[in-house]
């Protein structure tokens, strides 16, 4: 597709999911959800436990296959059947605890599975170290050495390393699943700064959380799910933390 940057409505959205259904046996986890992320936008995906947030983004990241519905990426209909498909498109997911290997160095973690190699598969340590430090610097995280072990870092710094990794690999959309859940207030603040940095680099972010206080200051738009349905999709300007909190706990209305 030869894109004209000043295009119409389609051009503005990076991802558009329409009418997504997902059943787990008899459980109807997603009931026809529409979900859109625009370029360089931070979307807060909020909802109570079991609302379908994780299921929705797992469909997007190729972990689950939707039973019905379509996904458009950069205006094109796409089939995402594996996390590899998603990554090829530029969709990267940062999971809470499963992102990093604690006993390995920062640079080995950032390039895990995608090592920079010279010949015969031997790693180019210099390039990996340089790339790691650059990626960390670009999200505003200054660490001493690319050889430091992940286990030596604070929780916030670890999230930073995971985020730097997706930045380095030129993701277009980054999905963060509860990135602040196990962090202290100060560390969570640091992570929110990393996320803003991603937007500055032109990367869209989906931020899943049930902590509205974390997501509210940094997100541009909020999508609220309740029991597998989207019950609200509002710009930050048009809402407040209290209103969102009320929406989350309110049962979906059926007329």
């Amino acid at each position, binding site marked *: 597709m030869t894109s004209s940057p000043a295009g119409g409505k389609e051009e503005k959205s990076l991802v558009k999911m329409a009418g997504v259904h997902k059943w787990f046996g008899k459980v109807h986890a997603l009931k026809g959800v529409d979900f859109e992320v625009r370029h360089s936008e931070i979307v807060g995906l909020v909802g109570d436990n079991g609302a379908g947030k994780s299921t929705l983004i797992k469909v997007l990241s190729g972990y689950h296959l939707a039973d019905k519905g379509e996904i458009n990426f950069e205006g094109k209909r796409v089939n995402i059947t594996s996390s590899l498909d998603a990554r090829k498109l530029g969709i990267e*997911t940062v999971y809470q605890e499963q992102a990093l290997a604690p006993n390995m160095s920062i640079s080995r973690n950032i390039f895990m599975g995608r090592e920079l190699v010279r010949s015969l598969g031997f790693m180019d340590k210099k390039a990996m170290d340089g790339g790691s430090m650059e990626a960390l610097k670009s999200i505003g995280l200054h660490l001493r050495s690319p050889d430091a072990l992940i286990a030596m870092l604070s929780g916030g710094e670890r999230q930073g390393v995971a985020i730097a990794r997706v930045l380095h690999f030129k993701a277009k959309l980054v999905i963060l699943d509860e990135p602040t859940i196990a962090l202290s207030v100060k560390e969570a603040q640091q992570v929110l700064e990393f996320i803003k940095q991603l937007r500055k680099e032109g990367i869209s972010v989906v931020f899943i959380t049930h902590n509205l206080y974390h997501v509210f200051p940094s997100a541009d738009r909020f999508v609220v799910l309740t029991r597998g349905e989207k019950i609200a999709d509002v710009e930050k300007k048009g809402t407040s933390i209290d209103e969102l909190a009320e929406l989350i706990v309110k049962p979906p209305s059926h007329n």
Partner: protein
Amino acid sequence: MWETERVNEDSQAVIAVLSRKLLKFFSYRAADTLVVFIGLALIFTFFTPHHLFIDPRNIKALAKLTPDLGIVALGIGMLMICGEFDLSVGAVLPFCSYIFVVLSRAGMNLVFSLGIAMGVGALLGLLNGLITVKGHIPSFIATLGTMMFWRGVLYVHSLMWPIGIRAYLPAGSSFEHVLTGEIGGVLPAQVVWFVVFGLVLGVVLHFHKFGNWVYATGDNKEAARAMGINTDRVKMICFMIVGILCAFVGVMQLLRLGSFAATQGLGFELKAIAASVVGGTFLMGGVGSIAGVFLGALTIQILENGLILMRVPVFGISAFIGLAIILFVVLNTYMRRRMIR
């Protein structure tokens, strides 16, 4: 007076630099193993009767014996780093040795026989890997099963008879020279093989991307998988490496003994794990180094040898090795915690 103050400051700076260097030295996984190895060697040198420990004959015997366990331990160390165990080495090793002896006795070319024995080793390793990975069974159990199975098959088929090789394989063939000869009449070929395997596996583990996958698989399998690493394949390859090394050692040992014995490699399974652990490998995987395992194997061997020379009763030696393992794990865990703070 000023003069002395400055000297004091200088010496303080030197001490600071030294202690930082020392800490850095100990942060290398193999460092504490090296220190203990040297310590043990010194102790045995001084305290064995007539300093028998450093008698050239003892050193030579050690040099011929140690690589048997050492080469197997290198593979086990790598396997443990990716988070798995292999208890079947003590059965795979004689099994492959048996394959070699049967084939070569039937007149097959020795190099081919070795190649096929190593291929069988790779297959048995692959089987261990498949059972573990596809069956979602802890490798501890899976390889306990295969250990007993292959040992049983071997015992029944060989009737546990030793098979001498000298009847058809006169000593001094070039094949034998390459595997178990002596370079310059001094350096046993086994040592060279031990070093060669150590270097090859060390380079792969520490500098090749496959090594990075091994560490990632053992350290956080979910993360490795999420980043597109085929952790199942990584584990299966590590199991196969162990099998291949077992076959090689089986044949090497066979040539040294001049006869096949169904009890070859008996007890290697736990000794290899002990060597890995003493070398700083974590039982849960993700941590370890080839240099560490190399030194770990040396340490276990000289511990045994030194104690024998000091006339410690055989069963007492087992107690010492047990003690050494526990002390090492405690030391390693402590150093690790210090490092991470």
